[in-house]
């Protein structure tokens, strides 16, 4: 079996049994990353030394007869807003083009302790701001299903790399959909954990009340494994929940019975691409076939959630990104005064989308406008959260099922001049983010687009959203779907 099409569990088993060495698998992964880089531009830095050193440590343990940790020898990809001392941490920004973090994020320490082999830092929309992977200072990432299309964003490089078979697992971050939407466009499982489930220590902050780190994988099983490894309390993150971390693998096959799936009336009311509408209807039938009861739920503020999200997220970003001043680290512009130095450093170092969002957030917080915009958005945020709570409590839903994105992967360049149309890509993903709820995007079906030589099959994702700390339940629901469908087994030809 080709190790790069194997699951994380299978890779660990190959290494434990001596069938393959960790170093051999690391080299296959590094080679594939390097070979695909000119095609996908998914990576900021490929970490040969980091990967080979870790792989040799794993091989030494195999030879010593030691028990291997859960991700021993498994190649993983890490989004470039998560600090790793090996290589740079650029956040896809010109501002941090040569920045090297002096420490590793908590999630990176957890991955390393579990034996994971970090192969590369992945390309991304600058500071997490984008839904297509095109807002990177290092150029756009391409979708492995059709390199003329976007992989989604902002975790673009991790999504493209995992989908293209460089590694079975990768880390992304989700502020308003940045894990789930690229998972949908690249045909993967992508998990946004409950806020507080995974430590944010060592994550470069975009919007602190929304940011969460989570895994990408090709199956619910690998996603469950990765989430089990990176979850857990961390005293270095004051928002980290003090709860036991379950092993999400244990009950994965058990399913949920009796299962109640909530489908929002609003999931049909947007201008969904026909393939998305079809995938949703088909999934409802699949779950009915599995004995689930389907109930209609009302998320009346779905359209307003996007407005609230873009005010809250940009307000927080305008504050968080104040640290990039050109004084202590990163890029410095020339200035005769300190203010000029700040203004030029930020004017030259930030891309246009980041500048737009900082300005929107600054405007929303500025004197005379803070009540009108920021305070109103925070009230709407509570309304959104309460709508979800009603769906779970009053309607008894275990999971809410809806599209992840309104359409499959779109062509490169089609939305870059129209920020608002890019923001609307997040219409289904921002609600759970505002409410701090877990959500898992999974492969729901396929769209056929283009004609003749340009005809392509593109993955279409759906998401299930659960109550706080309901990740285990959501992953079991996705696993139930995988067991009776074939979509997740289909891989891009690249």
């Amino acid at each position, binding site marked *: 079996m080709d190790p790069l099409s194997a699951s994380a569990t299978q890779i660990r088993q190959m290494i434990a049994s001596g069938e393959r060495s960790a170093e051999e698998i690391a080299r296959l992964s590094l080679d594939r990353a390097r070979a695909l880089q000119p095609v996908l531009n998914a990576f900021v830095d490929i970490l040969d030394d980091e990967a080979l050193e870790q792989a040799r440590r794993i091989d030494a343990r195999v030879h010593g007869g030691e028990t291997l940790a859960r991700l021993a020898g498994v190649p993983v990809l890490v989004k470039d807003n998560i600090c790793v001392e090996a290589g740079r941490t650029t956040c896809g920004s010109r501002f941090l083009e040569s*920045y*090297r973090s*002096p*420490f590793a994020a908590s999630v990176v320490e957890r991955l390393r302790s579990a034996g994971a082999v970090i192969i590369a830092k992945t390309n991304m929309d600058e500071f997490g701001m984008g839904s297509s992977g095109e807002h990177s200072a290092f150029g756009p990432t391409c979708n492995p299903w059709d390199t003329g299309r976007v992989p989604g964003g902002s975790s673009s490089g991790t999504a493209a790399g995992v989908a293209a078979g460089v590694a079975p697992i990768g880390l992304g971050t989700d502020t308003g959909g940045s894990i789930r939407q690229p998972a949908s466009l690249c045909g993967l499982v992508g998990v946004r954990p*409950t*806020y*507080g489930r995974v430590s944010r220590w060592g994550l470069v902050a975009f919007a602190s*009340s*929304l940011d969460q780190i989570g895994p990408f994988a090709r199956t619910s099983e690998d996603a469950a494994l990765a989430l089990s490894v990176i979850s857990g309390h961390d*005293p270095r993150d004051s*928002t980290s929940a*003090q709860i036991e971390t379950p092993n999400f693998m244990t009950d994965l096959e058990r399913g949920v019975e009796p299962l109640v799936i909530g489908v929002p009336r609003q999931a049909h009311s947007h201008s969904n691409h026909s393939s998305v509408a079809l995938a949703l209807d088909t999934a409802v039938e699949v779950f009915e076939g599995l004995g689930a009861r389907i109930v209609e739920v009302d998320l009346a*503020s779905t359209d*307003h959630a996007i*407005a609230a999200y*873009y*005010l809250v997220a940009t307000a927080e970003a305008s504050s968080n990104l*104040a640290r990039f*001043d*050109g*004084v*202590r*680290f*990163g890029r*410095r*512009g020339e*200035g*005769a*005064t*300190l*203010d*000029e*130095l*700040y*203004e030029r450093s*930020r*004017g030259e170092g*930030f891309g246009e989308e980041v*500048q*737009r969002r*900082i*300005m*929107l957030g*600054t*405007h929303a917080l500025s004197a005379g406008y803070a009540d*009108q*915009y920021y*305070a*109103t*958005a*925070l*009230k*709407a*945020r*509570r309304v959104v*959260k309460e709508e979800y709570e009603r769906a779970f409590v009053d309607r008894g839903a275990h999971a809410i099922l809806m599209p992840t994105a309104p359409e499959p992967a779109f062509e490169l360049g089609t939305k870059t001049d129209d*920020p*608002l149309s890019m923001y609307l890509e997040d219409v289904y993903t921002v609600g759970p983010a*505002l409410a701090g709820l877990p959500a898992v995007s999974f492969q729901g079906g396929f769209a056929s687009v283009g004609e003749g030589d340009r005809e392509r099959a593109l993955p279409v994702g759906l998401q299930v959203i659960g109550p*706080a700390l309901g990740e285990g339940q959501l992953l079991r629901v996705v696993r139930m779907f995988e067991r009776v469908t074939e979509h997740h087994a289909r891989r891009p030809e690249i």
Partner: protein
Amino acid sequence: MSGEEITQETVRKVARLARLAIDDERAARYAEQLGRIVGYVERLSELDLDGVEPLTHPIASSNRLEADEAGGTLSRETLEAMAPDSVDGFVRVPKVLDTGSAGG
């Protein structure tokens, strides 16, 4: 909320607050784009938000005390190496205080 036009003057004021140097071309583009975005977010005024408490944070959390133990820290050399311009262990910036004499 009332329909509000984002003028280039507003953009310049906000850019100044955010410490962003932007040229005329960008100011014009941002004014047009931010105007459309602000127009979109004004739909929040359709919601009945009377008596709704703002929600700043998605989870209920409370402060807690950590053990009072010294942890690791980054060395001065590490931090100096990260700074774009430094001298003898100090980060160098343009003159901040006008002391009225050339030597400062």
